[in-house]
């Protein structure tokens, strides 16, 4: 039907990145639905402690508050990295990405410490339906944050080696969507899991 050369079949560069951002956005929405199902499962299972410990016995308010601060501040520092990307400041960008990585690593470390403590108490995922749902929901979020940490390292290497090219900037933009999205999921976790558990 068309006699146009193959060049016209390729989208202009700006549209390609726009499409990739939209594709990543659609992925995030499907991820949000996975988390919604895990939240629904948790809320249904929260009372099924099978005679074992409940949230009130296991969760610590200060520990959760520390995790929340780490993740929220890492969202801010990622924003500062985006601002540095905007002004084309490579050193600042790398610096803020490194700070974001450190805060995210601190979050994962705190979460692993909590999980380790729970399992040592005999409150592992096999103890009750409540704990299975708890570990699945919070663990899935922790895995996402860990994947985000790897993503940050890869992007730091790309910024260092390739500089601020258009493709690198577009990947950083998608990493930003991912990182800020994980912080939103965490709001749900402390509001639906930890605080109601502690209030029991």
């Amino acid at each position, binding site marked *: 039907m068309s006699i146009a050369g193959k060049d016209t079949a390729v989208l202009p560069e700006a549209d390609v990145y726009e499409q990739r951002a939209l594709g990543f956005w659609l992925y995030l929405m499907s991820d949000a639905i996975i988390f919604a199902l895990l939240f629904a499962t948790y809320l249904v299972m929260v009372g099924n402690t099978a005679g074992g410990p409940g949230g009130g016995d296991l969760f610590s308010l200060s520990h959760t508050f520390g995790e929340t601060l780490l993740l929220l501040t890492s969202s801010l520092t990622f924003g500062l990295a985006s601002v540095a990307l905007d002004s084309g400041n490579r050193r600042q960008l790398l610096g803020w990405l490194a700070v974001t990585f450190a805060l995210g690593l601190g979050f994962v470390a705190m979460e692993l410490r909590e999980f380790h403590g729970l399992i040592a108490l005999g409150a592992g995922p096999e103890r009750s339906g409540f704990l299975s749902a708890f570990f699945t929901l919070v663990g899935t979020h922790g895995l996402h944050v860990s994947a985000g940490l790897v993503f940050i390292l890869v992007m730091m290497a790309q910024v260092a080696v390739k500089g601020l090219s258009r493709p690198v900037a577009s990947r950083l933009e998608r990493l930003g969507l991912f990182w800020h999205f994980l912080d939103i999921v965490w709001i749900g976790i402390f*509001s639906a899991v930890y605080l109601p558990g502690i209030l029991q």
Partner: protein
Amino acid sequence: MNNAPTAGRYSLKRYLGGYVLALLLTAIPFGLAATAALPRHSVLIAVGAAALAQVLVHLRCFLHLGLRTTAPERLLAIAFAAVLILIMIGGSLWIMFNLHYRMWV
């Protein structure tokens, strides 16, 4: 030197404002849970309201979502996801707690 390919899309002020608002909306539910001054039911409602407000702050200030500025297909996708999430969480809770009520009371 401004050779950045995304020039001018991210504003420092918006990130800082979002961070302060988010901190405030985090401090309120944690403070209420720590002091236990109110009955559990009211605290849970306040926690839910603060969470909803904080999600909106994050969407606006960190994910730069705006009804006019964001592409319509993205808004459509997030609206669709929100509807699915409401149906799935709301529906699961409705069915399971109704079942629980009928089985055990």
